[in-house]
């Protein structure tokens, strides 16, 4: 279903996205898919040797979850800007919830741009994983 610029209201929430718990296998799969083989995401001994208490998820995997919040809504071709700050680590077994809110509507360079703010938090303890901003270009009914 197409989302049109005219139908979006500043202050409205995006449909919440609840992700399945992250597994160690998913981290290995993401290492292969992305090519980021930093062993702190896959080898418990290395993670412990650098002072972590076990392997942690790639920040970029959690950012990819955050991206799904607005691509599920506006499509993958719509994105113009995407920026996040990583606030907390995510471990295997954790499930996260992505939430977003529309903050601005503006016409720029001949495009209808909608900006929003998003968060990714741990489902169990509400701990902040990611805080971010996005901008998508939407079609207009005009």
């Amino acid at each position, binding site marked *: 279903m197409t989302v049109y610029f005219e139908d979006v209201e500043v202050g409205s929430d995006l449909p919440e996205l609840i992700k399945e718990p992250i597994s160690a296998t998913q981290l290995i*799969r993401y290492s292969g*898919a992305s090519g980021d083989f930093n062993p702190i995401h896959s080898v418990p001994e290395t993670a412990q040797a650098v002072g972590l208490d076990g392997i942690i998820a790639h920040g970029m995997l959690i950012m990819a979850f955050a991206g799904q919040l607005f*691509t599920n809504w506006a499509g*993958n071709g719509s994105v113009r800007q*995407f920026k996040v700050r*990583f606030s907390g680590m995510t471990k295997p077994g954790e499930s996260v919830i992505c939430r977003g809110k529309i903050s601005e509507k503006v016409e720029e360079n001949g495009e209808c741009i909608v900006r929003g703010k998003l968060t990714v938090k741990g489902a169990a303890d509400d701990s902040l994983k990611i805080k971010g901003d996005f901008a998508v270009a939407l079609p207009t009914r005009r």
Partner: protein
Amino acid sequence: MIDASHKGKKFPAFSYTIERGKVREFLIAIGDDQSKADVERAIVPPTFPTVFAFWGGLRLEGALKEIGIELKNVLHAEQEYEYLVPIHVGDTVTGRLEVGDIYSKGGRTGQMDFIELILNYTNQQDQPVLREKSTLIVRGEGESA
């Protein structure tokens, strides 16, 4: 402390040709079951550019070593993408890595060192398509989290 003289350091360009199978693999890895139709229409998801660098021969681990940083001591602090022109399956993108700012900040757990990595991508028509900035935290050897 990271040697601040590395600010502005440039690394050799690398290229990556986007294959549909790799994008499908990426969707499975991120648990995205709603973007299949976009990928069949050759559109890539917003964080897929991470693949350009890691599979396109950036050799991040080696680049960081040249600056005296071990990959395993690095944590990701911030990531920013600016999408200038749509990137599609079949495109060949060329990336150029440059070191941005290098700085330290005092935090609850003591001083932390930060380094910005700037990646500028062009497509096969030499059009700028994507600007990327990664801010990394560099932890000391054996320092606790």
